[in-house]
Structure formats: C-alpha cells, structure tokens
C-alpha cells in the first residue's frame, strides 16, 4: 500500500527530508569518506550511523528511524562477494527479503526504504545515491502517514 502521489503540501520548497543511513564500516562508510576526499557535493540531509557490517543491522532499526521522524532510510553495505566479514551482507540481504514483506504488510511506505551496495571505491555512487534519495524523498514529502499508522496499531 505504497502511495506514490506527490505530497500535497504547497510549501514543499521548505521541506528538508530527514534521511537515516545505516552503513557498514568497511565499504559504504569508506565510500562516503571517499566522496568527501574527492569533494563530491551532495545534499546535507543524510545522517550516517556506522555499523561494522550490514549483517549487524537489526531491521527494527528501520522502524525506529521512522519513529524518530526520518522520512527515508538507507541501508548500504559491501557488494555481494566483497563483505569484509565474508558473508554479513548476504545475511542482511536474506533477512531483508523477509522483513520487507512484513513492513509492506504493516503499511510502511516501501518507497522510503532504500537498500544498496556501495564499495569503498564508489564515492561517486554515494553522492548519486544520496542525491537521488533526497530528491525522491523531497518529492514524496514528509512521512506524516507513519504517525497515523502508529496510532492505528
């Protein structure tokens, strides 16, 4: 039950999306570092939470992020086969496949959750991903619906 309509708020220009990114320490965090080293500018809306590995990410954290007012969540780790810990990212992917069904059933807007692989060499990809997510979230508007869902459940 995702709703893709642009947010009706006429004052859209003032809306600054809040994005929480759960990233692994070895690939995506370093990818974001590289974006910095190369001075690749992107919107300032993302807040990174560094974890050792995507395998560590308890997906309740996604719900928690929305609860604290995030408008979008990004989970990003090493590319398949490149995990610093061999297989943590595979575990993350496997659990995510199940968890997303659950979130979808709960009525979470799945368009607000992003899952991607960014390596330590992909500073430019980090820049692109953040820019795109910020832009997309900006168009979707603030995630007011989440609070309504909370009230019902």
């Amino acid at each position: 039950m995702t709703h893709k309509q642009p947010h009706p708020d006429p004052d859209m220009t003032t809306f600054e999306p809040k994005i929480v990114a759960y990233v692994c320490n070895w690939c995506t965090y370093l990818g974001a570092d590289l974006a910095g080293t190369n001075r690749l500018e992107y919107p300032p809306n993302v807040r990174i939470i560094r974890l050792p590995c995507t395998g560590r990410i308890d997906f309740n954290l996604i719900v928690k992020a929305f609860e604290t007012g995030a408008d979008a969540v990004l989970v990003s780790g090493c590319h398949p086969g490149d995990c610093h810990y061999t297989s943590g990212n595979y575990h993350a992917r496997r659990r995510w496949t199940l968890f997303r069904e659950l979130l979808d059933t709960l009525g979470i807007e799945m368009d607000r959750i992003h899952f991607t692989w960014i390596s330590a060499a992909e500073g430019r990809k980090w820049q692109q991903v953040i820019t795109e997510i910020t832009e997309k979230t900006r168009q979707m508007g603030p995630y007011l619906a989440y609070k309504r869902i909370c009230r019902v459940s």
Partner: protein
Amino acid sequence: MARIGVFICWCGENISRHVDVEKLAEQCAHLPGVRCCLTYKYMCSEPGQNLIREKIREERLNGMVVASCSPHMHLKTFRKAAEAEGLNPYLVEMANIREHCSWVHHDVKAATAKAADLIRMAVAKVRRNHALSPIRVPLTKRALVIGGGVAGIQAALDIADAGHEVVLVEREPSIGGKMAGLSETFPTLDCSQCILTPRMVEVGQHPNIRLYTYSDVEAVEGYVGNFSVTIRKRARYVDISKCTGCGACWNACPNKKTPSEFDFGMGKRSAIYVPFPQAVPARPVIDANACTMLTKGKCGLCAKKCAAGAINFKDQDELITEKVGAIVVATGYKLWDIGKEQENAKLAGYGEYGYGTYKDVINSLQFERLVSASGPTGGELRRPSDGAVPKTVVFISCVGSRDNAKGMSYCSKICCMYNAKHTMLYKHKVHDGQAHVFYMDIRAGGKNYDEFVRRAIEQDGAQYHRGRVSKITEENGKLIVRGVDTLAGEPVTIEADLVVLATAMRPADGVETLAQKLNVGYDEYGFLSESHPKLRPVETNAAGVFVCGACQGPKDIPESVAQASAAAGKVQVMFSREEITREPEIASIDERMCAACFTCVRACPYNAIERAEIRDRAGRLIKRTARVNPGLCMGCGTCVAVCPSKSAELEGFTEQQVYAMVESLG
C-alpha cells in the same frame, strides 16, 4: 554520571570553512552529559592532543567525542591520547564532520546543523560505551607468501633471512613470475634473468623457505597470528624427491607441439616440461591435457627414459595444511588479452587492431620473448607469421589503459618505459629497422627514466607519434597501421611488419577468488586494496594479510621489490612480539537469556560461536547456550541481528548505543 568532553577540530580551514565551529561548540556544550566543549585548529596535532589530555585530567572526563575527520583516519590517535591520560580508549568516539560534512556540504548553515546532529549522535553513543581491554592471542611466527614472482621472492627471502619460516606458494611449475621471461630491463638494459635467477636459487636453497610450486591456496581459515592454510599441490606426475632434473624425459617426449605458457604462445614445449632452463625447482611437470599417456594411455616414453624412476602417472592432487601467522599476497599481473578475454569483446574490445586475427599483431610480453636470448627464437627477432625479420615495427601504447570507453580508466604505468626499451632492443637487433611508437603521453617519472626515453628517441631513432591508432588491417603481408599524429596534425599510415600492443596491466587471474578467501578488498578492476593509500600501503583491511607488487596496482620491478621488502618488514614487526593484541569490540552472548537455538552458530562467518553446556557442580546439565570464542570473533555483529532472543551483543555497537544514536535524531 556522564562527564563527557567534546573536542571540535577546525582541521585548519578544512572544517571551519563550511562549518561554523564556534557556534557548533556553543550548541554542543548544552548536550546532556557534556561537561566541556572546546575547539582547536588541529586536534590531531601534539598541542591538540595535549589540550584533550589536559581536559581529561581537569574535568575528570569519563567519555569523550572528537568531532573531526573520519574515524578511519584518527580514531586510534585519539584513543591513544585518552589512554595515555588514563581514560579507557573505548570511551572515545568520533563525529565525522569533515569527510561526511564540511567537504561535501558547502552551505554553512546546513553543514553546521548537520555537524551538530553528528556530534549529538556521538555523544548519545559514548554515554553508553563500556571500558574495554584488548584481547591477547598467541602468534605463530611463520609466514605464507602467495606468488613467486619477483615481489614474492623478495618478501620470502627478507622474512626468511630474518630467521622466520616461510611457506612460498606458486601456481606455475617454477618460481620467477613475469620477470623471469623478460629480456632486458629498463632503464639499465641489464639482463632480467641474470639478476633474478640467483635470487630464485637462493629461495630454492634457503633453509627457512618451504617451497610449493604448481600449487594453489585452497582455503584460508583462522585469523591474524593463527591462520590455517590449505594448499592444493597439483598432481605433477613427477616425484621431485627422486628427479634429478637431467632432462632425459623432456627430450624423449614425442609431443612437442603445446604452446608454451612461459613464451606466451610464441614457442612450443613438450608435454613433460620445465618452463625454462633456469627454473626453480629445476624439475619437470607433466601437462595432463597434452600427455598422451594420461589422455589415451599410450606412450610412457619419459618413464622409460627416467633413470631415477621419478615419473608417476598415478600422481594425485595433494592437500596440505600449513599453520602461519601472517600472509603476504604477491600474485602479480597479466596483460589484458584483448579481443579474447572480455565477455562482450565486440562492444568492449579492440577488434579493429586484429589481435588474435593477424599473427603479427602481438602483445608486449610476447615481444619480450621474441627478443629474449632464452626465447623461442634464441634472441633473434623473427615475426610469428613467416619468420621474417621485421623491418618496420609499430608499438602502440595505452591499449586498454586510460580508455574509459572500452578499457580501463587507469594508467598501466610501465608501458611508456618498456616501449622505449623495446624500440632500443629492436634497433640493437635489427640495425636497418625502424621503430614507431604511438603514444598519448610519455610518462617517464623515475630515476634515469626520462633520460632513457630520450635515448630511445635521440640515439636509437625511434619515431614517436603522439596520437592513437584507429585501425590495423592486413594487405599483401603488411600490416597497415592507420593513426594520427596530433602534434603534426595529420593522419599517419605506416606499413608495418610487426605490431606490438602495450595492453593494459591487469591483476592475475583468480585474484578475486583469492581475495575473498583472505577477506581482502579489491577495486573494480580486481587490484587488491591496501589499508591506506599513503600511510598503510602494504597492509590490508584483513589483519595479518599484506600485499606487495602488481596485485595491488600496476608497478615496475624496483617498486615491486621495494613494496615486497616493506611487506616483509611489517611481517617482522608482527613477529617481533610474542603475542598479538586484538580489538575488544567483539560479540558476546548473554548466557542467561540464550535459548540455545544456535541460529548465531549457523550465521557466524568465522565459526566463532560454539555450542556450550552449563552444568552444576554435580555435573548435571542446567542449560545449553551459545558461546563466543573471543580469539576467533571478528566483530561483524551478524549474530546480534539474527538472535531471536536478543541475547547476542556486540561491544562498541550495542543495541543500546545504536538505538541511542537514532533516538538522538528525534
């Protein structure tokens, strides 16, 4: 009660240009638990660190946050500073307001607001940090070196000379690598084999080196200081302990038609062969695909001729386990096999150069063999198609290097130099011949390097054309090379007898698989990633695994050797201690809560979680539980995420800490 210090770094102007540091400090001073908040121009400098230490002392801090660069840069620095002042280093956190903020956001207001958030998150986390102490584990003082090219040889000899045992694994039947096949080397034109083979012999005879040739690394288990490596010794069909290397077998072998790998297909070899006369070990192998005894059960001439009875047609692969404490990867490079190797050769290759179609279009390593005294032509330059001496030779640089459209974006670094060398070697062999080079730029940075290129042009008359070649076609036995000279501003057409392509340098085949076994990162081209491009050039992100030579990136012989010695040096530093201390940020299981479902045991990539039983004094089973082996745990935290009863926890990234960080954003 929390007494937290927040230290905000200006990083010169790197942070302060886009983040209002003073305003930030004012805001952060009021965060819950924060005792003091200071800014300084360079927090990582000695006065900066002293300032931190002073505050730890004065304010009796029990936690601190440094807001500066990436924790990958300086977390260790600040943890050390804290430790020196008696504050447990694991009570230090960083907020990355440089790489993740000031360098990428240029609006001061927005950047300052983000920096404030990042600090708030770090403060929320550090309030829940625990004091931890490092874990000590034993250390095996033996090293594994993977790859027996010049880098591997150098690393193995250095470590062995320092008195430690070395296991050297080489995939080919002999050590020596690419360098053993080179003719002469730049910029001195000394004979490659003359300088390398004595080192190879040294390896073969060194009492501290155990050499496995014709072998692969099958599996790597364990962790820094305590690796257990499985080596597959491929069936050689020759018992090395009996063989004397007399050569009767390969002389007797009737099948001498197999293209020689060592000559890159420019010459032929027998089915039982040593790749080259100075091989170490100077013992043959049988190519199971070429030998008619092994494929059809007929022949066996070599066995009849072998006086030592060393031939064993029933030989099998053998798996050997070696315990080592450190691993040096030196797997080297290969040249890009354009037009043959890439998945979609039509779209991505250089079909227009006719490599693989025209016999006289060869790559640079093939040319090395054609001009090498030990090569298939005995050092006389004769082209592959008809054996004629080529009177015009065209060398093309950057075939696949520096080419975003259909190759690699990087510079292969050594081609400019060896192209110049090739033109000289050619001129020295064919006095009336003319060498042409098509190049994009001449990159000859290095001691005596530019002088060398000038010599090729000025003394040996190589014609350099700055421009690329669009097409090579064959007409009447000549190769028509059409390109452009952008300095002269005109198209150039050369009728050549031989064309040599300096194709891009790529990591050796299979390096990705090896990297995955070792947990070492690699870039999009397969080159292994060092820990830090400047300050940790031979370390990797996998503790105890080091890299050297061209597996890390294109480099020439002196650089490979230097890096190999550096890697060996790092191994010796490791081996200078009796035990290894490891980061304590690892997992633990709350045994009271554990429901013994053992989901974590199955998920753990390191087999670091065991099934344990808790018994009372009378030996009665009270409960079963999962238990983490702190020597094996690498701290990935997968067990935390999969644990249904929430009894797994990861120090440094506890549930409390992570949730506190998210909540601090609310």
